[in-house]
């Protein structure tokens, strides 16, 4: 086995906070001095004698990452937003240079996030295929030989000489994807986080990835979707804050990632200034999403119960208060509404509440959610009297469906819920 990718101690440093210091003027004098000296700073920056490094903050988006990947292997990359996954892929595909370290890549790197790059709305489908192919590094002869195949795959045959601005967004995506899919790189990089399009399209991407892996090419796959990672990769690395925490067989890496509680996301805290004055005497404090072992997480498993905990303060006694949540998908479709005094016994017991600090806690049973991202909104009101507080988008979380009903079929399912029904099958003769 030869090594396809060899990454040695790479790091990438980004500049942050430039905008902040730039616009913080205290006095008109500062503004004038700054304006007058702007050309001088520009000149300095151009000849490379920038004073940036001294007065701006730098952050390592990726630090000291090393790994080797053999030809024909499929490697998953998991980590929270900002962990450095996309930066790593950008370095491997040469979009950006590492600040330190070296990478050796054997073969052409293609990526499915380049879909449609360089497409021009005024050009026809045919013209865009050539244009896009050239941008992806294909030779003209190569495009010629694959042209018919690309058109067939895209299913836009009869519109191939129509400007793509007349295409529906679905046709546009299919055509763009068809070109990228026929690039046939030795190494394929897939960043699902940046993938566009509907579920159908994403399915196509994953299918393509599977094909590529079967042909013995090397694949790097970034995803928030743990079941896709489990299904498609044998090995995974876990990134956190730019560093590689582990590299292990996928199951082990995913377990580690899901249980490590790297997520401070999964908790929403309201500061005093976030709460409108009209909410008084109700004052929200925090909202937490917790997994079965009580860890605050931003990704939960649909096969485990999830606990939602809403903490708040009452500055005066309130009668008829109900505190609850709306659950909706990221697309804004409501899934359900639920209140803490839905049960008659609690309704009687907590109909009037004294001033003080409270927690309303709901346990959402296992086998409710489908895969994807959900939003929880909170509401505190007295029915027919007054609404104290409402936040429709208090927090969002991801649901991972590994082990959920029907996951042995690798396809996305429509609908926001994925309950475990009691199916029976009878044979009638």
């Amino acid at each position, binding site marked *: 086995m030869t090594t396809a990718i060899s990454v040695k101690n790479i790091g990438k440093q980004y500049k942050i906070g430039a905008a902040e210091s730039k616009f913080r003027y205290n006095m008109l004098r500062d503004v004038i001095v700054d304006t007058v000296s702007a050309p001088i700073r520009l000149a300095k*920056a151009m000849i490379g004698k920038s004073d940036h490094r001294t007065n701006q903050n730098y952050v390592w988006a990726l630090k000291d990452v090393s790994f080797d990947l053999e030809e024909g292997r499929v490697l998953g990359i998991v980590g929270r937003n900002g962990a450095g996954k996309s930066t790593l892929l950008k370095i491997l595909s040469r979009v950006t*240079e590492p600040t330190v370290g*070296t990478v050796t890549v054997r073969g052409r*790197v293609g990526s499915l996030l380049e879909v449609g*790059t360089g497409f021009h709305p005024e*050009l026809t489908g045919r013209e865009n295929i050539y244009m896009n192919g*050239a941008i992806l590094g294909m030779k003209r002869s190569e495009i010629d030989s694959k042209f018919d195949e690309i058109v067939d795959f895209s299913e836009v045959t009869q519109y191939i000489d129509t400007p793509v601005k007349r295409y529906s967004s679905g046709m546009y995506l299919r055509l763009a994807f068809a070109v990228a899919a026929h690039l046939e790189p030795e190494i394929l990089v897939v960043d699902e986080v940046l993938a566009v399009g509907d579920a159908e399209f994403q399915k196509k991407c994953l299918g393509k990835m599977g094909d590529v892996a079967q042909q013995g090419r090397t694949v790097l796959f970034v995803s928030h979707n743990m079941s896709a990672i489990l299904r498609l990769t044998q090995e995974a690395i876990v990134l956190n804050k730019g560093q590689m925490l582990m590299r292990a067989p996928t199951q082990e890496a995913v377990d580690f990632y899901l249980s490590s509680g790297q997520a401070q996301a999964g908790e929403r805290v309201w500061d005093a200034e976030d709460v409108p004055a009209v909410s008084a005497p109700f004052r929200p404090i925090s909202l937490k999403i917790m997994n079965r072992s009580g860890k605050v997480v931003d990704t939960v498993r649909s096969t485990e119960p999830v606990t939602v905990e809403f903490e708040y303060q009452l500055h005066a006694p309130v009668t008829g208060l109900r505190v609850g949540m709306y659950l909706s998908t990221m697309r804004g479709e409501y899934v359900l509404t639920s209140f803490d005094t839905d049960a008659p016994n609690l309704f009687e017991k907590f109909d009037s509440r004294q001033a003080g600090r409270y927690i309303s806690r709901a346990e959402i049973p296992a086998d409710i959610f489908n895969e994807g991202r959900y939003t929880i909104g909170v509401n505190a009101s007295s029915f027919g009297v007054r609404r104290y507080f409402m936040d429709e988008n208090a927090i969002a979380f991801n649901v991972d469906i590994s082990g959920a009903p029907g996951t042995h079929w690798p396809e996305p399912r429509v609908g926001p819920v994925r309950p475990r029904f009691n199916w029976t099958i009878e044979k009638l003769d």
Partner: protein
Amino acid sequence: MTELTKHEPHTVYIKPSKGLAALNLRDLWVYRELIFFMVWRDVKVKYKQTLLGMAWAVIQPVMTMLVFTFLFDRVAKLPTEGIPYPVFSFTALLPWGLFVVALNQGSRSLVAHNNMVTKIYFPRLILPMSAVFSGLVDFAIAFVILVILMFYYQVTPAWNLIWTLPLFLLLAIVTALGVALWLSAINVQYRDVNQALPFLTQFWLFATPVAYSASVISEKWQVLYSLNPMAGVVNGFRWALLGTGNGPDITLWVSVGISILIFISGLFYFRSMEKTFADTI
């Protein structure tokens, strides 16, 4: 899908480039077809969904020529070394028009294609290069108009000098590309370039003998004047086509020198900034 292509893949080493980056012209060669496609696309798309289409390539220089003729010939009565003013000014407007389009498109090329820059690898030099080259089509169309004008005014071309024309065209391209390399790279970080471009173009027009003859500049300022490489280009065009002026002398070589200096320094500046384009754009 088809089976794995069975050629030996080439190996790429990715590492931080230090100091003056190597020019990496090999990659530019590998991606040469992309330059062709970008130029082809620019030309194809430029006049799409316009009523007058390609006619704009004619209307723009002709209208400028008419305005110049009115102002500088009828009103100001500038000397033209015996050439009818419309031909005299149009000869200069040809390379000038090419230069302006190349400079403007070239300087904005990186920012205009930021989705390409942030998503995929290709030699970034291709963007300003193809923007500059795509101006050549308009140039060719305007050239036909010049030929017609010369027939109409019965101006005999300077046959013995006309072979030098491509050299002056090359000088115009090198100058425009050099400036575009500098400005496009700066534009990635400082969008001030967008604001400065119209002003720069206008200022440069006055500093170039487009509307007037270079002979109105007094002898002692000639060398200083030729620090503007476009002065060399415009004088060269008039000399090659109409036979006016003294032909190549010290001022032309100064122009050529400056032009090459801008181009080479622009190339290295561009390459040294290239590594951070995707991060700062």
